[in-house]
């Protein structure tokens, strides 16, 4: 069974380590915040200018001056700090954010990522994605393994305009967990019930399979 979006987020949450500062992109990455393991203390950075993002406010508590990078109303946790957009991307560029999680349309087996533009469609812009992928020490991509037409999104080379080059470190898709290595996608885990053969068939880029590939474990 392919993972749900929630399960992708849940699996990514297992990559969090105590003390991490983490930037979560829009979409599935945002859901990661719901699955932070017990005993693991992480601080969420929102690139519009906040460290210490909390959950959505209770009804009636929304503050129009307090939003996240997805423009959603949010809250803060104790110890939070506000700052301007230059310092926000400054701390990202300086490698102070330990982990960035974001979505992708395509990832190449060299770690290139495309997630901002589809030629011929209305282009909304890259927002902070290019800064994040160019700067982050550790980037995990949350994505579907295939597009709605059934074509692989894990490719030998991206076909869409790039967001960044050789930057993705790990992918958690609905089918698998993969490391991006100099040799290609290295399969680490399978979604429960998904076979290595299915992953092979749905991965267009170079795939490395060594030994027994375990199923993901969810608590």
């Amino acid at each position: 069974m392919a993972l749900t979006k929630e399960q992708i987020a849940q699996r990514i949450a297992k990559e969090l380590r105590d003390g991490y500062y983490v930037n979560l992109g829009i979409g599935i990455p945002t859901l990661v915040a719901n699955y932070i393991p017990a005993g693991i203390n992480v601080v969420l950075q929102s690139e519009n200018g906040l460290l210490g993002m909390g959950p959505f406010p209770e009804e009636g508590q929304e503050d129009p001056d307090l939003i996240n990078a997805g423009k959603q109303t949010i809250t803060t946790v104790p110890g939070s700090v506000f700052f301007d957009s230059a310092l926000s991307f400054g701390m990202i560029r300086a490698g102070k954010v330990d982990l960035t999680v974001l979505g992708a349309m395509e990832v190449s087996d060299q770690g290139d990522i495309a997630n901002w533009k589809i030629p011929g469609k209305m282009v909304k812009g890259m927002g902070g994605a290019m800064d994040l992928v160019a700067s982050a020490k550790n980037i995990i991509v949350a994505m579907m393994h295939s597009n709605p037409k059934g074509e692989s999104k894990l490719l030998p080379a991206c076909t869409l305009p790039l967001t960044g080059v050789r930057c993705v470190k790990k992918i958690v898709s609905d089918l698998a967990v993969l490391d991006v290595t100099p040799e290609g996608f290295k399969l680490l885990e399978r979604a429960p019930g998904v076979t290595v053969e299915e992953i092979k068939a749905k991965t267009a880029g170079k795939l490395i399979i060594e030994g027994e590939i375990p199923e993901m474990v969810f608590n």
Partner: protein
Amino acid sequence: MNKQVLNATEAVKDIPDGATIMFGGFGLCGIPENCIAALVKQGTKGLTCISNNAGVDDFGIGLMLQQKQVKKMISSYVGENAEFERQLLSGELEVELIPQGTLATRCMAAGYGMPAIYTPAGVGTEVAAGKEVRNFDGKDYLMEYAFDADFAIVKAWKGDTDGNLVYKATARNFNPLMAMAGKITIAEVEELVPAGTLDPDMIHTPGIYIHRIFQGEKYEKRIEQRTVQKKA
């Protein structure tokens, strides 16, 4: 050094057609609502707007788009409104998309008198086209120039008559950076207080960067994505 002007109308009255203007704000958060309204009323045209976003159909810079006052947008993320898309596709509107951190840092560079900065954002992408790439310590960076804007219009929470500004929460965003970057900077604030009232340790934008300040009125502060959870 009193910088106080009467209102938005007076603050923007000398902005000519064809000017390059920075607008603070991220989405609809922390945007200079009063000055945008005054510019719409004034009808200034042919503007190049440097702003992270372009508002929505009926709010923010979207109001200026409706009036066809904008020639070019320099932004990181746009298109939350239909009129924007129509003008873009019809060729009436020019759009330059640049990474959000690059946008912020090019504002900062102007305020710090630094002609250019280096950032890795966009290396190897179409953003790098025509730009100088330089390797430092094994990593490639693009050289990006400081912005050169005729006017910057920002919104702060509190300000004093000397132009010192304090922002609230994530309404800070691009405001302090653009405040530093305009040849003429106009600040509208929710509360204007006499110089000497604000704590000098707790000022986000020193008044030396501000040329005109006024207390705005009737802030709508529209929320773009209202997300809430049920009461516990």
